[in-house]
C-alpha cells in the first residue's frame, strides 16, 4: 500500500478548494457581465475590445440600458485570474478523476505531463485571446 | 505442511496475548484460527477487567474475593498468581494503547462489580472485551505474527506422549493442512453452543476442549457452567453486569427488589455473585413472580439518558435492536442464560497440560482460578495473565524434535475421515445439534436434578451414536459451513457429555452447580476437582483435592 509521501498533494488539494471559492466569485462575475448585462447574443469583437481594453461594460438587454466603467486593470485582472483558476481547477479535477482509477495508474507520469502541457497550451490560448482584444496589441498584430 | 515453534489455536484475547508473549520470548509463532481474530467472541465481553490498581486496594483482597466467589474450589495458588499479576497486566494493556475509560484526573477508571469487596473493575465503557481484543490484535499486527485465519483445527497430533502440532481444514479451500508445532496452545474459547440459550457466539463450540479430551487430556470441573443473570430472553444476548455495578435494580412482577426482599442476598443485593442472582431470578419465576417468558426486570431508568449513554452505550443499542426496549424509559426484561465454562482442559498455572507440548489457556482451560463460579471481570483478567504465562512457557519449553511424519499421518487420517463424513449419512447435523442443545438447556440448567441429568446423558449417548452416521448435505469444497458445523457438532457432544457426567456425579451444591437432591455444600467429601478422561469405553471420572492455602472454606453469603 502506498505510504509514499507526496508533499504537493496537500497543496494541490488546498489550491483546488481555494480556486474553487475564487471561481464562484470570478465565474459569477463573468456570467453576470457576458450573459446578464451584455447578453451573449449581443457580443461582438468591438464591445469585447471595449471591455478588455477600457473596462467599459455596456448592455442593452433584459435589464435595460446599463453602462459600467470599471478600472481597466481590474477587469483585466479578473479575466486573467478567471482564465488561470478555471484551467487549474478544471484540469486538476479531471486529472484526479483519472488518477483514482486503478487501471490508469500505470500511465500516471504520462497523464501528469499531458495535463500540465495541455493546461499551458490552454493558458497561452487564453492569453492570446486576451491580447487579440487588447487594443494596443491589436494595433500591431493583425492575422491578415 | 507448515512448521512453527509455537502454534496458537484460536485468536481471541487469550490466544493473541499468548502469541504476543511467545513472540516476545523469541519464538517463531503462528496463530491458526477458524475466525479472523477481530471476529472472536472476546469482543463481546462487556463489563471489565479486575485488578487491584489503587493504593487503597490489595491484590490479596482480590484473591480472597475470587476464592470466595469460586465457592472455595478454585486453586488458591493459581488465584494468587493471577490476582498478583493483575495490576501489571492491566497496566501493560494500557501501555499497549487499550482505551480504558478515564477518571477526571486522566487515570484508568474502575467500577463496582458483583462479588467484589472493592470497586476494582477497570473498564472501557461497556465494550471492554472489544477494546481488549482489538488492542491485542493490533499488537499481533505490529509484530508481524503469522495468522492463518479461517482454518478450522480439528485435532491435535499426539505421538509418544507428546503433542506435535495440529491438523486443520482450510475453510476457504476445503483442503486438510498439517501444522507442525513445538508447542500447541489451545485458546479456542468456551463451549456455550452446548446450550440453546447462551450469550456465546455460534463459533463457541468447545473445539479446543474436545480436541484435548480426545488426545487423552482430562477435562476438569466441566459441571460448573455459569449462567449469567441478565441476558435478553429472545436471543440470549448479554446485558453486562456493569448495569448492576452502576446501580441497576432487579424487580419481580410485584415491583419488589427481590434480591433484598426475599433474602437471597441481604447485603449485596443485585451485586451478589452471578450464581446467586441467577438462582434468585429463576426462583422468583418459578414461584410465579416473574414476567412473561420467564423474565425479571432490570431497571436502569433512574440513571438518566446521559449516564447510560456514557457508560452503557452498547446496552442501549442491544436492547433497542434486539429486544425493542428502550432502557432509558423502560426496564429491560432479562433471564439467566449460559455464559461461561468454569471448567475446561486441566492444566497447571503455566497452561501446560499433562500432554507434553500441549497448552490450554483462557476459557478453554481450567487452571482453576474460577472454581465453581467465576466473578465478573475475572475472565478478561484470566485471558491476559494466563495468556502471557502460557505464551512465555511454551516459547521457552517447546519441543525441538517435532515429528513431521506424525503430523503427515494425522493429515491423512483426517482427510479420510472428512471424505467419509462427506460421503453421506442418515441425519443432518442441525437436527442432532438441536436435540443436544435442547436437552442441555432443559435438564442441565441452573437447577439440576438426578433424573433430568440421567435423561440428558441418554440423549447425549444417543447423539453420539447418531453422529457416527451424520449427513453433510453440501458437497462443495469451498467454504463448506455444513461440513464445519458437522465437525463442530462432535465437540459439542463431547462437552455436553463431560458437563453432564460431572454434574451427575457431584452430589452437592456448590457455586454454579446446584442439585435438587443435595442442596448444601459438602466440604467434607467434595472439596475436589472432577477430572473426566476419554477412554475407549466412554468417559472415566477421577477426583483430586483442591489446593487450599490461606483461605479456609467458610459459608458464603452476600
Amino acid at each position, binding site marked *: 500500500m*502506498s505510504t509514499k509521501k507526496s508533499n504537493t498533494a496537500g497543496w494541490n488539494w488546498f489550491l483546488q478548494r481555494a480556486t474553487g471559492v475564487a471561481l464562484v466569485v470570478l465565474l459569477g462575475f463573468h456570467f453576470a457581465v457576458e450573459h446578464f448585462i451584455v447578453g451573449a447574443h449581443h457580443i461582438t469583437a468591438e464591445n469585447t475590445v471595449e471591455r478588455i481594453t477600457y473596462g467599459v461594460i455596456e448592455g442593452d438587454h433584459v435589464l435595460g440600458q446599463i453602462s459600467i466603467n470599471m478600472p481597466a486593470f481590474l477587469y483585466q485582472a479578473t479575466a486573467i485570474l478567471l482564465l488561470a483558476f478555471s484551467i487549474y481547477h478544471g484540469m486538476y479535477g479531471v486529472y484526479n478523476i483519472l488518477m483514482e482509477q486503478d487501471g490508469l495508474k500505470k500511465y500516471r507520469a504520462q497523464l501528469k505531463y499531458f495535463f500540465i502541457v495541455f493546461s499551458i497550451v490552454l493558458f497561452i490560448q487564453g492569453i492570446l485571446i486576451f491580447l487579440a482584444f487588447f487594443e494596443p496589441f491589436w494595433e500591431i498584430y493583425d492575422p491578415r | 505442511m507448515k512448521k512453527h515453534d509455537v502454534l496458537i489455536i484460536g485468536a481471541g484475547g487469550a490466544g493473541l496475548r499468548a502469541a504476543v508473549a511467545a513472540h516476545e520470548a523469541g519464538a517463531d509463532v503462528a496463530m491458526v484460527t477458524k475466525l479472523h481474530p477481530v471476529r472472536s467472541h472476546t*469482543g*463481546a465481553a462487556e463489563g471489565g477487567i479486575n485488578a487491584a490498581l489503587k493504593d487503597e486496594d490489595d491484590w490479596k483482597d482480590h484473591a480472597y474475593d475470587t476464592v470466595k466467589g469460586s465457592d472455595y474450589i478454585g486453586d488458591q495458588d493459581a488465584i494468587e498468581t493471577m490476582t498478583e499479576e493483575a495490576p501489571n497486566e492491566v497496566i501493560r494493556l494500557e501501555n499497549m494503547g487499550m482505551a480504558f475509560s478515564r477518571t477526571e484526573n486522566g487515570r484508568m477508571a474502575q467500577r463496582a462489580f458483583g462479588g467484589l469487596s472493592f470497586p476494582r473493575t477497570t473498564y472501557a465503557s461497556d465494550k471492554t472485551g472489544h477494546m481488549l481484543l482489538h488492542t491485542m490484535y493490533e499488537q499481533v499486527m505490529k509484530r508481524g505474527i503469522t495468522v492463518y485465519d479461517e482454518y478450522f483445527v480439528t485435532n491435535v497430533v499426539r505421538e509418544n506422549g507428546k503433542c506435535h502440532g495440529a491438523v486443520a481444514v482450510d475453510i476457504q479451500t476445503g483442503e486438510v493442512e498439517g501444522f507442525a508445532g513445538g508447542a500447541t496452545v489451545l485458546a479456542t474459547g468456551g463451549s456455550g453452543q452446548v446450550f440453546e440459550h447462551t450469550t456465546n457466539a455460534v463459533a463457541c463450540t468447545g473445539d479446543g476442549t474436545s480436541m484435548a479430551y480426545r488426545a487423552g487430556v482430562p477435562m476438569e470441573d466441566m459441571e460448573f457452567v455459569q449462567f449469567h443473570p441478565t441476558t435478553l430472553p429472545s436471543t440470549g444476548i448479554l446485558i453486562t453486569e456493569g448495569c448492576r455495578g452502576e446501580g441497576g435494580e432487579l424487580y419481580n412482577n410485584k415491583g419488589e427488589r427481590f434480591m433484598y426482599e426475599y433474602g437471597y442476598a441481604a447485603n449485596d443485593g443485585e451485586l451478589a455473585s452471578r450464581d446467586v442472582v441467577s438462582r434468585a431470578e429463576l426462583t422468583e419465576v418459578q414461584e410465579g413472580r416473574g414476567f412473561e417468558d420467564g423474565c425479571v426486570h432490570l431497571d436502569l431508568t433512574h440513571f438518566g439518558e446521559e449516564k447510560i449513554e456514557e457508560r452503557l452505550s452498547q446496552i442501549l443499542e442491544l436492547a433497542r435492536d434486539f429486544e425493542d426496549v428502550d432502557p432509558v424509559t423502560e426496564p429491560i426484561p432479562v433471564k439467566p442464560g449460559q455464559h461461561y465454562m468454569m471448567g475446561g482442559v486441566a492444566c497447571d498455572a503455566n497452561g501446560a497440560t499433562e500432554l507434553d507440548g500441549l497448552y490450554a489457556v483462557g476459557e478453554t482451560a481450567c487452571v482453576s482460578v474460577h472454581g465453581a463460579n467465576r466473578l465478573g471481570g475475572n475472565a478478561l483478567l484470566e485471558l491476559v495473565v494466563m495468556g502471557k504465562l502460557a505464551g512465555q512457557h511454551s516459547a521457552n519449553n517447546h519441543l525441538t524434535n517435532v515429528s513431521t511424519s506424525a503430523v503427515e499421518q494425522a493429515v491423512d487420517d483426517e482427510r479420510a475421515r472428512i471424505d467419509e463424513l462427506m460421503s453421506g449419512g442418515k441425519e443432518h447435523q442441525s437436527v442432532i445439534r438441536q436435540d443436544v442443545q435442547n436437552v442441555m438447556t432443559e435438564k442441565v440448567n441452573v437447577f439440576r436434578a438426578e433424573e433430568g441429568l440421567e435423561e440428558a446423558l441418554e440423549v447425549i449417548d444417543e447423539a453420539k451414536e447418531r453422529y457416527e452416521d451424520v449427513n453433510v448435505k453440501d458437497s*462443495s469444497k*469451498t467454504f463448506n*459451513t455444513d461440513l464445519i458445523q458437522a465437525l463442530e457438532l462432535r465437540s459439542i457432544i463431547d462437552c455436553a457429555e463431560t458437563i453432564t457426567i460431572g454434574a451427575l456425579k457431584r452430589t452437592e451444591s456448590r457455586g454454579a452447580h446446584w442439585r435438587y437432591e443435595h442442596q448444601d455444600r459438602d466440604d467434607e467429601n467434595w472439596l475436589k476437582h472432577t477430572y473426566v478422561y476419554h477412554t475407549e469405553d466412554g468417559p472415566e471420572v477421577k477426583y483430586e483435592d483442591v489446593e487450599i492455602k490461606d483461605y479456609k472454606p467458610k459459608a458464603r453469603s452476600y
Partner: protein
Amino acid sequence: MATTQETQKTETPAAAEAETATLDVFRYIPEEDDKPHTETYEIETFEGMTVLDALIKIRDEQDPSLTVRHSCRMARCGSDALYINGTQRLACNTQVSELKQPIDVEPLPRFDVIRDLVVEMSEFYNRMESVEPWFQPDHEPETGDEYLQSPENRKNIDTVLDCIWCAACTSSCSPAASDSDFPGPAALAKAYRFYKDEREGEETRRRRLEMLENSHGIYRCHTQFNCTEVCPKNISPTEAIMEMSRDAIKEKLRFWR
C-alpha cells in the same frame, strides 16, 4: 420502575406482521456455477426475526449449502455485513419486518465473492493494516506506569473505537473501489482513532498525519457520506477524514496561527 400495567401495554405490540417472508438470495458456488444467480426462498417468520435468523433458517431447513459468515449474532463480530435491499448492513441487527419484500440479499458489493454471501476479505485487512493501526507512543508514561488521558480526549475517540471491521463502509465507498491505494473509510477511521489519542504524543501525531496525507490518502475522500450512512456502529469516517485533512492543511498554513 414501570408498573405491571404499563409493562403489559408495551408487551402487546401490533402483532399484525407478515407470517412469511420472501428472500432473493445471491448464490454462487464455484464448483457448480460459472456465474452467480439469484435464488428465491420463502420462510415463515417469527417476531423479532433478523435477516441472519432468516438465512440460518433457510440453511437449516431448506438449503444446507447456503453459506454466510456469522458468529456472535449481536452486532459485535462484524462477520455478516451484507448488501440487503440496496444498502450495506449487518444481517444480525436488521429486522425482517422492517424491510420491503422480497428481501434482496447480496454479498458486499465491490468485494470478490468466494462463495454465496462470503466475500474475499484479504484486501480489506491489508488496507486496515496499511495505516499502522497500533499504539506508538513517543514517550514514557507520565506516571511511570500508565499514560494519562483526559476523559474528554477519550470521549472524542469513543465512536471510532467501536469499529468492528465489518467492511460495510469500505464496500459502500466508490473511491475505495476504484483506487486500491486508498485505505478506505474503515482504515482511515482506525487511523483517526490513534491520531486523536493524546497518549501517543505530538511527534507520532505528526508522523501519522504525514503518512496519510497524500493524494491516495485522506485527500481521496469525496464526502459522499456513504460510509457514514451505512455504518452499523454510527461512526462517521467522513468526519474523521475531514478533520484530519483540515489539520493537515492547517499544518501547511502554519503562519496563519
